[in-house]
């Protein structure tokens, strides 16, 4: 589709324009066409009910992709295939998605699918996520798919119903926030550390009302998994969407994926995708500059992701109510170090950090080492495909030999809906995305970290700078 103007525009603006069904006016929001809706069991039952109540059908079942991930057990099934759900209600929720998808002709990747996984891991692996698309899901971490140069964002259940019924959403055009990251990452610094650093710089609500575009040499050098980690946590600074312009790294990742364009369609698609970038001279509403050289392995010390610091720094010593409340909950002290704090549980998983590269990073630390006595470590691959790839490399054996639990794919302890929770008061070093109070279980203290930092902390049983282990590499 030709661009209606030659003025320099942002990547976001280009994708937005391609999807406007009806322009916004002072009185009405734009009607935006949605290319792909991802569905899971938690945020969809009431949307399907609404369709039923109104006698509406799903307009485009072919533009829906469903899986089960949040309420599903990550323990292995019994020999007879029985799965142990945390409650009957969790099981009923999963069964309801099966019924709703069957009724409306939507493909659902359930227990028997080799593709099943966390929705934001599965979509890209299948090639369903493609540059230039609009993608939504009743899940705030939908921004993950922006790593491919898609406009992807989380919506509520009422909006899930809107998209099911009409394939459209009512949207006011958001602002743009450019995040320019330049330079090389130091050893031991991962995409997770970059995004925690960005959230610290922008603030926990600094991105509200905005779509982020991440760009610069640091981002260009990242592989697709790293870009997904980066975009995934955009919501943690308030931005509904985060995106990276597609490039050869993107095309190489997508080439040959089953749901991607095939044959002659592939070269046509790539030619189009190459136009999806922010033009020279295009303006962001706001621009933040980040020096990659200044980023160190990072962790959170408080109860929202903006409460972060470099792992070798001291916990902020401030008297404001938020800081005091967070430190009281975390049982930590301002001015003290977090490194060295005893760790009860280590969780490697979630849509942020449960892809093959994350598992490899954790395994590189755990190889020929043991998880510390008294520390529990869960490793939960993001999808069946990731699990299979990891097992083919023997990563599962490294984890189990170290004394960690190698579990079935799912959201698991990131949100704890399936019963994978820690005990009250436990300190969890977690590769997930939220350290809110009670998120990983009542009274549980979450420290967000990279897979390297989490694995290093598992070995020592204390919050540990992963660079100590890099120096020990043979």
């Amino acid at each position, binding site marked *: *589709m030709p661009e209606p103007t030659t003025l320099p525009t942002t990547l976001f603006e280009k994708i937005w324009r391609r999807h406007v*069904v*009806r322009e916004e006016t*002072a*009185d*009405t*929001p734009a*009607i935006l*066409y949605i290319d792909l809706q991802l569905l899971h069991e*938690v*945020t969809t*039952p*009431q949307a399907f*009910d*609404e369709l039923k109540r*109104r006698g509406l059908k799903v307009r485009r079942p072919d533009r829906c992709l469903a899986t089960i991930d949040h*309420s599903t057990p990550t323990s292995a099934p019994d020999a007879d295939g029985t799965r142990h759900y*945390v*409650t009957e*209600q*969790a099981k*009923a*929720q999963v069964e309801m998605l099966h019924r709703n998808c069957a009724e409306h002709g939507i493909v659902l990747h359930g227990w028997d699918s080799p593709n099943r996984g966390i929705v934001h891991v599965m979509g890209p692996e299948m090639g369903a996520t493609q540059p230039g698309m609009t993608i939504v899901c*009743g*899940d*705030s971490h939908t921004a993950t798919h922006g790593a491919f140069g898609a406009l992807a964002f*989380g*919506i*509520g*259940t*009422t909006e899930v*119903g*809107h998209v099911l*019924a*009409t*394939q*459209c959403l*009512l949207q*006011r055009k958001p602002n743009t926030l450019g995040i320019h990251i330049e330079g090389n990452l130091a050893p031991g610094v991962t995409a997770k550390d970059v995004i925690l650093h960005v959230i610290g710089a922008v603030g*926990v*609500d600094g991105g*509200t*009302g905005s779509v982020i575009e991440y760009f610069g040499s640091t981002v260009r050098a990242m592989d697709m998994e790293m870009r997904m980690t980066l975009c995934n946590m955009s*919501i943690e600074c*308030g931005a*509904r969407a985060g995106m990276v312009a597609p490039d050869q790294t993107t095309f190489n990742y997508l080439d040959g994926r089953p749901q991607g364009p095939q044959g002659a369609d592939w070269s046509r698609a790539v030619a189009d995708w190459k136009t999806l970038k922010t033009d020279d001279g295009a303006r962001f509403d706001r621009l933040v500059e980040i020096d990659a050289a200044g980023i160190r392995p990072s962790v959170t010390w408080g109860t*929202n992701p903006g409460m972060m610091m470099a792992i070798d720094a001291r916990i902020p010593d401030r008297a404001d*109510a*938020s800081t005091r*409340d967070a430190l009281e909950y975390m049982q930590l002290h301002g001015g003290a170090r977090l490194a060295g704090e005893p760790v009860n549980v280590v969780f490697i998983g979630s849509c942020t950090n449960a892809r093959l590269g994350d598992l490899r990073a954790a395994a590189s630390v755990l190889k020929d080492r043991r998880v510390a006595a008294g520390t529990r470590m869960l490793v939960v691959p993001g999808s069946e495909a990731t699990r299979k790839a990891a097992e083919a490399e023997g990563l599962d054996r490294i984890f189990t030999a170290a004394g960690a639990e190698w579990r079935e794919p799912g959201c698991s302890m990131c*949100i*704890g*809906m399936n019963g994978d929770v820690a005990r009250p008061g436990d300190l969890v070093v977690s590769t997930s995305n*939220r350290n*809110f*109070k*009670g*998120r990983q279980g*009542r*009274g549980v203290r979450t420290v967000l970290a990279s897979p390297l930092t989490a694995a290093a902390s598992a070995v020592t049983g204390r919050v540990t700078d992963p660079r100590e282990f890099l120096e020990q590499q043979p």
Partner: protein
Amino acid sequence: MNDSPVADTRAAMGVLESRTFNLPVDNIDTDQIIPAQFLTTTERTGLGQYCFYGWRYNDDGSPKASNPLRKHDAATQQVLVAGANFGCGSSREHAPWALLDFGFRAVISSRFADIFRGNALKNGLLPVQVDEAVADWLLDHPDQTVRIDIANHTLDIEGNGTFDFPLDPFSAYCLTRGIDQLDFILQNEDAVEEFERL
């Protein structure tokens, strides 16, 4: 549409007059508003019992002595005043469903998270965004009588002035007439079909 409390709130709203109830905490995330353990429900009703659950109950389910909502009077205090960045985190629409079922009809804050704001407006829970100075004054002065006029998007604090708050005209239109936003998209079905043909 009349068989559940949440559905009822989607009926037309005009002016809400109520006393305020304060939760002077910044960054109240949706995990606080309704913890994830209660999201296995397939209903949108009856979630008030889980609203701020971790703040109201101990691990063993007994009431918390420190519960900041223990003095909330659902009959008279339908307006919640909270710290900045209310509703951050997860996209769960269960958050406004729980707040409504608990008895709130509006939330006043100096900043709202985007997804929460959208979810609230679609369920008749009014996000009233005011300047920090106004929010801070309300947080310092609990149990005020306020009058929220949706059509004119004004907040009147009895005896202490009237303040504008931003409200998307389309949302105001839908709220004051009890119109469902889905109907608006459905009315444009021809345009959607045309778009899909191109």
